[in-house]
C-alpha cells in the first residue's frame, strides 16, 4: 500500500454563515477539500476569507451549517487531541511552567508521569528550549512561547496538526527561524499539517500544497501543488518564482476585498 495516498481528511460542501447583529455574514461557501496523510497543506487568502473558520471547523471548535467533515471516514463533532490546534496567540497556561505546559496534553490523555516528563523533555529539545523548561511562560519571548506551543502540540502526537497563523505575531527574525524549524520537524515526523496563513512566502516555503481562498463568501479558488525539493531556502530562485505565481492568484482577491472595505466605509 502506498502510504502517500491515504485520505486523512475530507471536507465536502462545507458552508458557514455567521449571524451578525443586523446582517448575515457568509463566511464559507461550499468548501470541498481533501488532505492526504502526511501532507502539509497551507490555506491562504485575504483577511476575512474564512480560513480560520475553516480551521476551527476541522478542529471541531465551530460547527458548519452544511456539509460534511470526515477524518479517517468518521464525522468530526467536537474538539479532540487527535486534531490539536496551535493558535496565533500561544495560549500557554500561565500557571504552569514550560515543562508543565508541554506535559499538559499528555496528562489529559493519561500518560504516566515519568513517561510524559521524558517525552516533554524530548520535544523541548527538539525546539531548543531545554534550558527554559522550569521557567514560567511570561519569562519567555514571543518566539520562545510559540516554540513551547509547538512542542506542546507535537507531544500529544495528533493525527493532524492545525496551525492558525502561528507565526504571524512574531518579529521577522523569529518567524524565519520558526519556519525553518517547522520545516525540519515536518521532514522528520511527516505529520499531517493544515496551516493557515496570509503570508504567501510562508505558505510556499512550508506547504506541499497551497490552497488559495477567495473572500466573502470564502471559497476555494485554486489548489496549487508545490513540488520544490526540501530543504527549501527562503529567497531561492525557484521559491521566488512560485511565490510570484501564487501572489498573482491572490492579488485579485485582495483588491476585491479592499474595494469592498473602502466601499463599506
Amino acid at each position, binding site marked *: 500500500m502506498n502510504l502517500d495516498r491515504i485520505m486523512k481528511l475530507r471536507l465536502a460542501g462545507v458552508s458557514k454563515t455567521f449571524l451578525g447583529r443586523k446582517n448575515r455574514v457568509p463566511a464559507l461557501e461550499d468548501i470541498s477539500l481533501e488532505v492526504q496523510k502526511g501532507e502539509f497543506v497551507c490555506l491562504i487568502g485575504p483577511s476575512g476569507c474564512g480560513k480560520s473558520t475553516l480551521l476551527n471547523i476541522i*478542529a471541531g471548535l465551530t460547527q458548519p451549517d452544511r456539509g460534511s467533515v470526515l477524518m479517517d471516514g468518521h464525522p468530526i463533532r467536537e474538539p479532540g487531541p487527535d486534531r*490539536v490546534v496551535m493558535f496565533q496567540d500561544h495560549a500557554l497556561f*500561565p500557571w504552569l511552567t514550560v515543562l508543565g505546559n508541554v506535559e499538559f496534553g499528555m496528562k489529559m490523555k493519561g500518560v504516566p508521569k515519568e513517561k510524559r516528563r521524558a517525552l516533554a523533555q524530548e520535544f523541548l529539545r527538539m525546539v531548543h528550549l531545554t534550558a527554559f523548561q522550569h521557567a*514560567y511562560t511570561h519569562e519567555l519571548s514571543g518566539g520562545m512561547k510559540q516554540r513551547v506551543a509547538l512542542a506542546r502540540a507535537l507531544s500529544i502526537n495528533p493525527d493532524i496538526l492545525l496551525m492558525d497563523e502561528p507565526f504571524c505575531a512574531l518579529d521577522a527574525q523569529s518567524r524565519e527561524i520558526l519556519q525553518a524549524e517547522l520545516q525540519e520537524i515536518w521532514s522528520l515526523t511527516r505529520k499531517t499539517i493544515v496551516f493557515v496563513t496570509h503570508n504567501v512566502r510562508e505558505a510556499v516555503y512550508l506547504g506541499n500544497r497551497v490552497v488559495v481562498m477567495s473572500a466573502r463568501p470564502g471559497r476555494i479558488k485554486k489548489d496549487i501543488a508545490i513540488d520544490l525539493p526540501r530543504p527549501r531556502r527562503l529567497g531561492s530562485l525557484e521559491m521566488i518564482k512560485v511565490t510570484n505565481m501564487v501572489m498573482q492568484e491572490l492579488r485579485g482577491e485582495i483588491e476585491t476585498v479592499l474595494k469592498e472595505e473602502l466601499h463599506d466605509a
Partner: protein
Amino acid sequence: MRSAVRVMLFYVLLLLIWEGIFRLRLWPAFLFPSPLQVFRTLAAGLCDTTYLIGIGVSMQRILLGFGISLALGIVVGFCIGSFKILDGTIGPLLNGLRSLPSICWFPLGLLWFGLNENAINFVVIMGAAFCITLATDDGVKNIPPLYLRAASTMGARGLKRFWYVIIPAALPSIITGMKLGWSFAWRSLMAGEMLYVSLGLGHLLMMGRELNDISQMFAVMLVIMVLGLIVDKVVFGLMEREMRVRWGLNAL
C-alpha cells in the same frame, strides 16, 4: 535596611507621643492608659494564658466558619460561573446579600440558633461566603476563552478540564476573594464574640469594658489587630505573591 530603621523610628516616635499625651493628663488614667500599662497587661494576659485561650478559641471559630464559607463559596461560585441560568437568577440575589453588613444577620441568628456558638458561626459564614462566592464566579467568567479552546483541543473535558484548567485559571480571583472573605469573617467573629461569655478575643475586649479595665481593652485590640494582620499579610500575602510571580503579573 534603611527603610526598616525608618519604620522602627516611626513606631518609637508614636509610642513617645502616646506616652507624652498620657503624661499631659488630658483624660483620667482609667480612660486613657499609658503604653507601659498596656504592655504590662498584655504580658500578664499572655503569661497567665487568658489571652492565649482567647486566641485559641477565636482561631478555632474562624477556621470553622471561614472553612465552611470557603467550601460553600467556591462550590456555589463555580456553579454560578458555569451555568448561565444560575448566573441570571442567583447571581443578583447574592450580590444583594453581600451588600448587607454581616452584623445585620445577628438578630436573625440569635432567633434561629439562640445565644450560642451556632449564632456566631452563622454570622461569620454570612459575612464571608458571599464575597468568596462572587469572587470565584468572577474568576470563572473572566477565564480567557482562548485557554478553554486550547484545553479542549488538547482533550481536556469534564472533571479534568475543571480541575486542571478552570480552577487554576480562576485562582487569582479566588485568592483575592479569600483575602476579602477572611477580613469580613474576622470582623463578624469579633462582633459576635462580644455578645455573650464566648471566651474568645471579642469577649475579652468586652470584659475589659465591664471591668473598666482600659489597658485590657487596648491590649486585646492590639492582639486582634496583629492577628488579623498576620493572617492577611503572611498567609494570603504569600499566596498572592507566589501567584503573581508565577503568572508574571508583577511585571505589568
